[in-house]
């Protein structure tokens, strides 16, 4: 199974995401902000990083840009509870693989995006 790092400042979402992804992924770690996300990703080398867009400090787009500079970078998937249309230009310019709306997050949805 592919390994995942979950990055979100809301503990409730990290918990539910962990449960939802457990079917098809191994969750190897969590991070609560952008800086910690980059550190943990460098350390744990997950296959996938699921990162919330609205993080304190370095935001999700910043994390995606930072991770893209690593050798053998992980696949980054952005997520948010905000309307995707508001974020579209930023998502388009980001090196992230894609975007999944928070309320639609499931192991299947993430798997389809990565396929």
């Amino acid at each position, binding site marked *: 199974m592919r390994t995942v790092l979950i990055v979100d400042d*809301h503990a409730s*979402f990290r*918990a*539910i995401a962990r*449960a*939802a992804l457990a079917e098809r992924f191994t969750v190897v770690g969590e991070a609560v902000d952008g800086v910690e996300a980059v550190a943990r990703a460098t350390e744990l080398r997950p296959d996938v990083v699921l990162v919330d867009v*609205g993080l304190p400090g370095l935001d999700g787009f910043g994390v995606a840009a930072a991770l893209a500079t690593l050798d053998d970078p992980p696949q980054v998937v952005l997520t948010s509870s905000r309307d995707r249309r508001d974020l579209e230009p930023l998502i388009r310019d980001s090196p992230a693989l894609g975007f999944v709306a928070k*309320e*639609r997050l*499931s192991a299947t949805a993430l798997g389809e995006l990565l396929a």
Partner: protein
Amino acid sequence: MSIAARSAYGLSRHARPVAIGVAVCAAAAAIAGAVALTRGEARGQTTVLAVTTIVAGCTFVAGGIVAWLRRPANLTGPLMMVAGFLLFGTSMAQAQQSLPFTVGLVIGAVPAAVVAQLVLAFPDGRLHSRWERLVVGAAYVDVVVLQVAMLMFMGFEHINGCPCPDNLLLIRDDARIHSALMGSQRVLTVVVTAALAVLLARRWRAASAPLRRAIAPVLWTTAVTIVLLVAAELTTDAVSRGLAAASRIALATVPIAYLLGLFTARIARVSVSDLVVELGRLPGPGQLRIALARALRDPSLELAYWIPDLETYVGLDGQPVDVGAAPGRAVTVVEHGGRRVAALIHDPALGENPELLGAVGSAAGLALENERLQAELRAQLEELRDSRARIVEAGDIARRRLERNLHDGAQQRLVALSVALGLAERKLTTDAQQAAAMLQAARGELTVALEELREIARGLHPAILSRGLAVALEGVAERSPVPVQLHVDGGARPPPSVEAAAYYVVSEALTNVARYAHASAATVRVARDAGRLRVEVSDDGLGGATITKGSGLQGLRDRVEAIGGHLEVQSQHGRGTRVIAVLPLQHRETTAETELGDANRD
């Protein structure tokens, strides 16, 4: 019109009899002195010197009486009277008896020290610096201490013009000690005179134009007197005696110089009548200051207008002005029709001329009131602009906070709920038990989200207000962590905007009580009073609350004032806090308000 700062007319009713008494005594002393002097011509005195001394004594006493009647609080008048009597007293040195002879010898030089004090203390009668006090002190040491010490060793057997009565102070007739003391007295006299000249020159250089006008006559007459005295000391025989007499004549003009200073106030009345004419045709704003500055002859004059609502002074531009006495400035408050109108910020020297300030203030009272109204209008416009900006800003901040609360709260919970439901849906077939547990957890999450949404909705607008202010306030009191006693008068319902303002006043005030006051109880009173709704929230906590920029209380005040009300915070340290809002019930409603109000009441 009245000048609040001080009045020259505060004489006690005993003043006139006292003045007459002093004048009678002075006349008697002058006659006695004149008689004594004419008899004592032999002792080195001349008739000319005798007469000029008596004349100087008379002008000092007379000038002192007038000065004292005009400025009872000023020490100058009494000092001048003292100097006059001392001048009369010097004639006692011509007496045939030992006691008056000795007294006459002791006080012979004291008038010079008093005159030094007078000129340094002019015009307000006070010494202002350590140097001035030092010089005056040294002058008194010179003319009293050294004089007495010298007399203790001075016999008069060999002096020109004697035989004389006994010197009662004599211990031992010793020419060496006596001349040594006399020498040191001369040195000290020169030092004190030089120091006096330096101090007066420095005062002149530092003086503003009005102050120079006030001190010039006194300064020049004193300077001439000193120069003549010094010249008399340096010369001998007939020349010396002539210069001494001339110095007495110059001395006699010093009180006249002071009175001249007083009379300029009278002369200034002419400038007041000019002012009255000028006020009739003032072309525009700012001209009043120029006209008043001209009438008072103080180009540095500034005007500040009193705004009772803001309890502050403002300039003509409506901006607040600090009238707290700046160094080198004095403030005189002008009233018109019994109300404070403006403050004149002027040169302190003008304070010595309260009649002129009073006359100018009186003449300009109406014009000042007109400019005050303009300044008040500008200040109100300024305040209105500020409060409008604050209201818009407060709205933006509230919306930003709302978005944040929605995003971090209910929205996150609903997102989690959506994911959990998706998960439960898939588990339904494989693991029904786990799916049931997940659904149960989801319902708990949903309950919390609903509560959060209710809280936010209430923050947007207290829907419960549609049931009336009393019911809504009961809810607020219920949620307050500090026990609240609630008293709400019944009666017809106020307009919705008034109800909302009252609700927010109570709500915000109770939030502050819970957060900052450390109170054990709070009381809310809502009462009708003469067409107004009075809302009062008081607590027994720490106190010390103020309406600072950007605070919740500032927002409340803006809201209250926007509907024509008034908000006040009384909060002394340790005495609890009292927030009082007075809201007009006859507020004219906007259409939107009426529609919304009706909708609320459905």
